[in-house]
């Protein structure tokens, strides 16, 4: 069996007294979409920030493409990319200008062609000359995704990519996510509050609560384990402090 694309082992992050991530371990296999699910404060974003190297872990290890992130961060980042609802590309630049800048940073070959490809894929090619700050929320999210796809990443981190999108655009984003995985074999770590996202898009789900992993498995396995009818009802039960036994299965 090939080495996991991403391997997180006993990852801990402490900020003073707080421990937003408390000893989590999981891995993503080649071409897998792994959902990171949990209420606000579950530790999802902190975990993603550690995988991106923006936050240094207090303990534990992150290996990407078999390499240790702490030692080969730049080489690893060249082969991955990131898109978050909470970040934007500079609003005063045109769409194509933003993509040129990031394309050069990621050393994308045949950049002009690739920019057209990603804009086409996300159905925003007609916005190429628009000012990024004038885009709607849905268009802006798709521009962020274009940036994230520019370098054909082998590992893609998507932090709540459908938040604040209308159902039509959210559906398109989900379809694109699956298409990238199917066509390019990209491994994807996908965080979301949207249960439909998780059920439709993710092969497996890491369910987090208060910095710990409650369960890892398919959506069906999670429902069966916690004897719930839907991920949404499980999510609400956990968020409202319902009795949940910390357990893990892979």
């Amino acid at each position, binding site marked *: 069996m090939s080495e996991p694309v991403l391997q997180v082992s006993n990852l801990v992050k402490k900020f003073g007294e707080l421990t937003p991530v408390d000893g989590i371990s999981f891995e993503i296999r080649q071409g897998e979409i792994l959902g990171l699910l949990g209420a606000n404060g579950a530790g999802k974003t902190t975990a993603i920030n550690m995988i991106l190297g923006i936050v240094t872990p207090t303990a534990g290890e992150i290996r990407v493409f078999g390499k240790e992130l702490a030692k080969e961060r730049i080489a690893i980042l060249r082969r991955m990319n990131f898109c978050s609802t909470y970040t934007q590309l500079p609003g005063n630049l045109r769409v194509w200008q933003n993509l040129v*800048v990031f394309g050069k940073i990621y050393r994308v070959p045949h950049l002009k062609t690739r920019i057209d490809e990603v804009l086409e894929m996300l159905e925003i090619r007609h916005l190429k000359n628009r000012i990024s700050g004038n885009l709607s929320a849905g268009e802006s999210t798709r521009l962020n995704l274009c940036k994230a796809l520019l370098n054909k990443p082998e590992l893609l981190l998507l932090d709540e990519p459908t938040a604040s999108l209308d159902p039509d655009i959210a559906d398109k984003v989900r379809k694109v996510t699956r298409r990238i995985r199917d066509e390019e074999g990209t491994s994807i770590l996908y965080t979301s509050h949207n249960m439909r996202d998780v059920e439709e898009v993710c092969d497996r789900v890491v369910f987090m609560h208060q910095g710990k992993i409650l369960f890892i498995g398919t959506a069906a396995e999670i429902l069966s384990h916690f004897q719930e009818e839907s991920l949404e009802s499980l999510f609400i039960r956990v968020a409202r402090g319902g009795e949940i036994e910390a357990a893990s299965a892979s």
Partner: protein
Amino acid sequence: MTLSTIQALVLRNLFLYTRTPVRLVELLFWPLVDLLVWGYLTVFLQKHTGDTFPYQITFLIGSVILWDIIFRAQQGVALYFLEDVWSRNLLNVFSAPVTNADYLLSTYAIGLLRAAVTSLMLSVLAILLYSFNLFELNWSLIPFVFNLLLFGWSLGMISTALIVRWGPAAETLAWAVPFFIQPFAAVYYPVASLPPAIQWIAQCIPCSYIFEGMRDGLNSGGVSWSDLGMATGLNVIYLIFAGWLFVRVMKTAREKGLLTKFVSQ
């Protein structure tokens, strides 16, 4: 360090200026206001002192131009970081394959471009409006100006490090840091004008030697090698310290999650 990454980061800033002409106000308008105020003050003093007019006062115009080189170079580094904060682009940049060296070198380049644009405009206007020609210093101008750039870059790195460490509330340091040192930097008056008890502060600041040296140069026509040597030596120390501080603070920022706080503001 990657040339294409540095080019991309510089390009991003150039796009900003071509896209938002109002930014030229900051780059051209305020320096122009300074030049006009100090220039006409010089003209006024010249008229009322006649032949006894000391060359140091003429150099006020040169001081405006040369101080602006420090300020624009410092702003090039410090505002570069804030541009990413304001546009919520910070995590995109710091989650990309950008090393500290790539980042710093691109800010230096932007600082150099900003200083070049402003100082060129001011120098030409100083000749046209006040017959003050900074280029009388000929080739000796180059090492002096280069030293001012070095000092501006150091101040820029220190400003950025402090903003990263103390968070968005410390943004104002991007403008304030150069003015903390200006009273002691011999910009508009010689070090000897300062009270003896605080002259040592001026002696620890590289640009005080530059301004002193250039005043001497314009007066005597020669080059003050000792001033130039002191300025260069101090600048090397400042650059090493500022670079160390920047790298240290970025490490702390990753440990404490400080960069993510700029996103959630």
